[in-house]
Each structure stands twice: as structure tokens, then as C-alpha cells.
């Protein structure tokens, strides 16, 4: 009789140990549905990126490497232009800072939520993209799911979608013979859509108009080459100058 009791005891111990593990599973189950829109979006844009890289002579190995290490959607598109001109890593570095400067404000918004998350925190910060930020800043984990695990799975899933889609695009690129001219418009369309999403909130509209007006003025005055830096400075100046008016 002792053996079955022990067996049950062991089984119970193992079950309760598993009972700690299912929190990971519960976190994954809670995170996955939230990331489905990102999966579809990244599938489209990541594939397009892999294809564009392939079209410019950079195979799936390079595009996937860029996605895995560089991981920054819009900047990776911009970087294609840097890969087909004279070698200039300093420009790539500075342009990455300018194009991704908006990340600074994602970080500022996540200072509190990413507090005290231990080992996963560096990973969460490394892969804090526009889409992951929109999810982790908006969603709360369900009961029984740790904040840390919820953020981790959202971040990991989004990251995997992007890297996976890039590889797929790069691999399929060799077999796709149709004309990809204009495919890169997907990026413009993404920003137009994100702009519209911002526009939905009335308090964002003045800032949205300031962004377009300052960028258009910078383009007209300083030209395409110096657009990003001059526009960032101009936008900052106008936003800080109009702070009292915009602070409602």
C-alpha cells in the first residue's frame, strides 16, 4: 500500500511543480491573441523587407541577420539605401538614432512598467518596437499571469514574427519573379495608418499637424538629405515653444 501512496505523493509534488510552470503557458495564452494583429502586419512588412533586400542583392542570411540584430522596422528599410551606396557606417549609426529617436519616448513611458523585472528586462528593452510598445503600454496581464511573463511573451512573439517573416521573404524572394516596384510603399502606408491612429485622439491633432508642417518645411528648405535632423530640431522647438498652448 505504501508504494501507491508514495506514487500519488510524487505525482502531486510534480503536479504542483507543474502548477508553477503553467503560469508561463497561461502568459503565452494571454499574450498570443494580443499579438495577432502584429503578426499579420509584420508578416506583410517583414516579407516585403526580405524581398526588397533580395531585390537589392542581399540574400536571406543578410536580411535575417539585420532583422535579428538591428530589429527596427522603419530603420531597416532606410538602411537598404545605405547598403546600396558608398560605405558609411557613421551615417548609418547617426541615421538610426535620428529615425528611431521616437523610441526614447517609448522608454520614458515604460520606465515604471519595466521596473524591477529582473533578467528579462534587457531583452524587453532591446526589442521595444512601435508595435510591442503599443501593446505593453496599453494591455494589463490577466489574473494569475505575472506582468513580467506577459510582457516577455508579447515581446518575444513580436520579435519572432519579424525575424521569421524576413527570412521567409528573403527565401521566397529567389522564386518570386514578379515586379516588386512600389512594394516599399507598404512603409509609407504603415506610417499613414499610424498617423491616422494618432489622429483619432483630438489632443494629438495639433502635434500631428506640427510634425507634418515642420517636416515639409525642413524638406523644402534643407532638402531630402538633411530632412530628419532638421525636422527633429524644428519639431522640438515648436513643441517646446507651444507647450503652454498644447498642454490642455
Amino acid at each position, binding site marked *: 500500500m505504501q508504494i501507491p501512496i508514495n506514487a500519488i505523493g510524487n505525482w502531486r509534488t510534480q503536479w504542483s511543480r507543474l502548477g508553477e510552470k503553467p503560469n508561463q503557458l497561461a502568459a503565452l495564452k494571454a499574450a498570443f491573441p494580443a499579438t495577432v*494583429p502584429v503578426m*499579420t*502586419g509584420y508578416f*506583410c512588412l517583414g516579407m516585403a523587407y526580405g524581398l526588397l533586400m533580395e531585390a*537589392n*542583392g*542581399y540574400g536571406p542570411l*543578410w536580411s535575417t*541577420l539585420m532583422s535579428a*540584430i*538591428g*530589429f*527596427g522596422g*522603419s*530603420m531597416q528599410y532606410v*538602411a537598404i539605401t*545605405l547598403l546600396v551606396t558608398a*560605405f558609411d*557606417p557613421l551615417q*548609418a*549609426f547617426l*541615421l*538610426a*538614432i535620428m529615425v528611431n529617436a*521616437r523610441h*526614447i*519616448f*517609448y*522608454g*520614458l513611458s*515604460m*520606465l515604471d512598467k519595466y521596473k524591477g523585472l529582473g533578467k528579462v528586462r534587457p531583452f524587453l*528593452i*532591446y526589442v*521595444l518596437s512601435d508595435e510591442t510598445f503599443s501593446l505593453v503600454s496599453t494591455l494589463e496581464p490577466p489574473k494569475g499571469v505575472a506582468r513580467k511573463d506577459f510582457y516577455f511573451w508579447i515581446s518575444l512573439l513580436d520579435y519572432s514574427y519579424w525575424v521569421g517573416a524576413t527570412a521567409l521573404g528573403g527565401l521566397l524572394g529567389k522564386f518570386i519573379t514578379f515586379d516588386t516596384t*512600389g512594394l516599399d*510603399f507598404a*512603409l*509609407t*502606408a504603415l*506610417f*499613414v*495608418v*499610424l*498617423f*491616422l491612429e494618432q*489622429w483619432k485622439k483630438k489632443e*494629438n491633432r*495639433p*502635434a500631428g499637424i*506640427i*510634425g*507634418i508642417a*515642420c*517636416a515639409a518645411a525642413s*524638406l523644402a528648405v534643407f532638402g531630402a538629405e538633411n530632412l530628419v535632423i532638421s*525636422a527633429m530640431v524644428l*519639431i522640438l522647438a515648436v*513643441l517646446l515653444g507651444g507647450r503652454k498652448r*498644447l498642454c490642455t
Partner: protein
Amino acid sequence: MYLTPLQTLAIILAVAAGTQITRWLPFWMFPENKEPPAVVTYLGRVLPAAVMGLLVVYCLKNVTWTAAPHGIPELLAILAVVLLHRWRGNVLLSIAGGTALYMALVQLVFA
């Protein structure tokens, strides 16, 4: 490939370094026990919308407005994105629809 493998790797690392600085900077500047100044909180609130506007313009920076086709494909496709998004509010549909129209315009109509 225009660049050598080593140069390509250098560009990838440069892009990654620049990108990571923008992601880590706030966490370096304001450690876990510090509250950011009010002006920083204000910028964090208004900058996202402004940056989206900048990025739309950035994508159109190489369009020649003074010569044919005068940016007509870009403007038509953007209009399609706006209308699709107002109609359905589906991010993927808006992006896919606008991109498909743009590809058709530059490959078939304004080729």
C-alpha cells in the same frame, strides 16, 4: 551586394548600435527610482503624433513634384489608405490595399 560582407556587417552593427541607444537612453537617464521632469513627460505625450507626421513626409522626400507624374501615384495611394482606414479601420487591409494600388499605378499606369 554593393558592399563587401564585412562592410555589410559593419552597417548592420552600426544600425543596431544607433537603434539600441534610442531604446536604452531613457532607462539610463532615469534609473528605476527617478521620476522624469515634467517637460520630458510632456514631450513623451506629444511627440508620437508629430513623429508619425515626420515619417510620412520622410517617405515622400524623393518624390519630384515639379515633373511628371507630380507625385500623383503617391497622393492617390495615400488617399486610398486614408479612405480604407476610415471605412474598415483594419490596419493590414489599409496597408495592403494602398500598397497594391501604388504598385499598380507605378507599374501599369505611370510606367
